[in-house]
């Protein structure tokens, strides 16, 4: 027989059900760890990530835990500093696409008619292209730099938010409380902000959290292809790319690759958890499997 999860006391016991899943806990721990690393990299990193002063291609060992790359730079330090490049950019990217996509989607759903048509056909247009290829084209056309890579990913990322938001707003738009607000003389903007927004944030936040992993992968992918970060910036995708050239020294590509993997996993776990927490039906199903 299972123990009643509510009977447990302690820190874990006080958390909502969904957050007590092992995956949720590991997601939070890893994500927080990376955020700490990103903030504290200058103090945590044992070496200057750009200094070419160590022996070249030294395997992982007590002196440099993750080994060194072909220019004699410490990979551990570069991976740590890489968090300062990749994570803030990814978060900013997701926030921006959420803002742009959400706003456009809300307008489309709320106003309908030609506004809806215009915005959604535009979204369809972007959807019609394979994401990665379109991002590559945009990044190549703008020239290789991290800012341009973010812009490129932004171009392909917003329509997802626009669609979801539009669908949610459509569902809420005709509800009584929204209509009565309108009848009371609320402006469209106020109605959207006060009546509609609180009812659609949850699912969109879930989408955004799940999207962080995708965005990071896309950004690193562009850098891997030489369309993102410029050398010698310690960006993870670019580091993996340089590791491919020294294939025999596995550590050069492996550690930045693992960094990407863990961040993507952590945010996917977080996104799943958030969805479970905000969706009562799935939440009930999980109750059975609580910690």
């Amino acid at each position, binding site marked *: 027989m299972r123990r009643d999860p509510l009977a447990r006391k302690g820190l874990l016991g006080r958390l909502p059900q969904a957050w007590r899943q092992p995956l949720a806990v590991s997601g939070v721990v890893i994500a927080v760890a990376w955020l700490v690393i990103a903030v504290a990299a200058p103090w945590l990193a044992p070496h200057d990530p750009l200094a070419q002063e160590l022996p070249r291609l030294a395997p992982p060992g007590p002196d440099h835990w993750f080994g060194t790359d*072909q220019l004699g730079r410490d990979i551990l330090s570069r991976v740590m500093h890489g968090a300062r490049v990749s994570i803030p950019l990814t978060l900013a990217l997701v926030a921006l696409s959420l803002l742009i996509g959400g706003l456009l989607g809300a307008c489309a759903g709320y106003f309908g008619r030609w506004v809806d048509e215009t915005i959604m056909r535009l979204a369809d247009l972007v959807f019609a292209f394979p994401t990665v290829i379109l991002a590559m084209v945009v990044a190549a056309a703008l020239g290789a730099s991290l800012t341009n890579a973010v812009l490129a990913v932004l171009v392909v990322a917003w329509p997802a938010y626009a669609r979801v938001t539009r669908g949610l707003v459509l569902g809420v738009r005709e509800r009584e409380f929204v209509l009565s607000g309108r009848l009371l003389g609320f402006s469209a903007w106020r109605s959207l902000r006060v009546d509609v927004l609180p009812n659609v944030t949850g699912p969109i936040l879930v989408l955004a959290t799940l999207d962080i992993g995708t965005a990071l992968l896309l950004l690193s992918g562009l850098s891997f292809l030489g369309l993102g970060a*410029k050398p010698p910036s310690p960006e993870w995708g670019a580091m993996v790319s340089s590791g491919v050239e020294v294939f025999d020294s596995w550590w050069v590509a492996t550690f930045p690759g693992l960094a990407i993997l863990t961040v993507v996993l952590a945010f996917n776990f977080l996104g799943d958890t958030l969805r479970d927490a905000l969706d009562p039906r799935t939440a009930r199903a999980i109750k059975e499997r609580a910690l």
Partner: protein
Amino acid sequence: MATRSQTAAVLLAGALALAACGSGGAQAPAAQSGGKTLVIDTSFDLKTADPGRTYEPTGLIVGKATYETLLTFDGSDVTKPVPALAESYELSDDGKVLTLKLKQGATFADGSPITADDVVFSLTRVRDMKGSPSFLLDGVEVEKTDDTTVTMTSEKANAALPYILPNPALGILNSDVVKENGGTADAQDKAEQYLNANSAGSGPYQIETFNVSSQVVLKANPQYHGDKPAYEKVVIRNVESATQKLNVQRGDSQLALNLSGDQVANMPDTLQVKKTASANVFFLLANQDSEISDVTTNAKFVEAVRKGVDYSGLLELAGEGAARAPGVIPSQILGALPEGEAVQRDVEGAKAALAESGLSNPTVKLEYPTELTVNGLSFQPLAERVQANLKEVGITVDLQPAPVTTALDNYRNGKEEMGLWYWGPDYPDPNVYLAFLPGQLVGERAGWKAGANKELEELGEKAATAIGDDARTQAYQEVQRKLNESGPFVPLIQPSQNIVAATSVTGIEYHPVWQVDVADLGVQ
């Protein structure tokens, strides 16, 4: 939508993983090391087996094995052409007429004798087909004087001609066979298809099968008029370098041609590694066109760069076997500067030069090609090292990597502020390097227009018309000294060409023109 982007994410992750794993190239045919078969792994750069159209490294290996030229080089010494199908040659005093006496008794694979007509046909064919190697014989008239004598007349003094003739592109074809199969020796020539499946030459090998993307199989020519080669069959496979290493370690292949300095660093004793400085020279260029930059046009700035680069650090990146390039002419070619004359790093001197230049904290863009490797060495680490070196001097270098085609475009049009490139000789004669002078091919790429340095241009003209090895050596060395003083180029290094081979293979020698001569290899 979430599924869509998740699918994309999975695909991308898969692509990254695949790339990280390094995709293996061709599938391996069973290598019979016991028989007399030699398996060579190389990354193919191959378009055709028609010598008259060949100018790619892999094509030159095949061409060298299947055709013979009038003159050749002995081993890897390219400073002295030696007789091959021609038993002797003589250059007239004005350098315009080269007279060649043909060797008697040499025959094609079908048994017919090699005549002066075949020579005239083959060489005019290369020149008039307007293929990639046509430029080798631009302005050269080939005539038969009698059955055993051929003269080659150039418009201008052409002391380089004996050094050009050993190029496998100038292999002698059986004119009767080629004519029967569509050969017309002009732009309408249709013999390529035939020559891609058959050999119409007199070389020690003949083509058995030929596939430009996967593998080439050569079999020994049973009628060869010279010494029989040691291997009955030679298989040349298109294999990516990481896989080349695995294959040669497993004994799946006997020769790997494209391993980088890092890849050959820890080879087991069961394999032999031949490291030779290649004839490719990496160099930096600083644009002299004031419309492109007002930093790199400053002579003192160029001096600061020249003194600021840590050459030994670059050598370290290139691995053992690499060599400093004291001038633009690589060590194996006539006229190369002795290594002692190479510029040495001098950070204080560089800082002083920068101070004199009047520029404070200059920032320059350095362009270089990505996804291009030269002897297994890619440009990125070199560029990053140069960036770090120059930072110590006080010059900020903004790296601008670009895909080869884009980067080449800027380079060829002279649009790069600074560039990191390499130059490989078209043929092993120093006159190739006159391209670095103002108004010439590479000079123009650095925005260095004709008339920019009169003294150097005169020296160049003197070198171009000099006759005799001593006079030429002196003239070309003078040109390079002057270039090192006041030119916009900074010669860096010659990367190492590494050949890894099974111990059973003997006589391995890296050749700057055709990499390896398979007929020269022996079995232990």
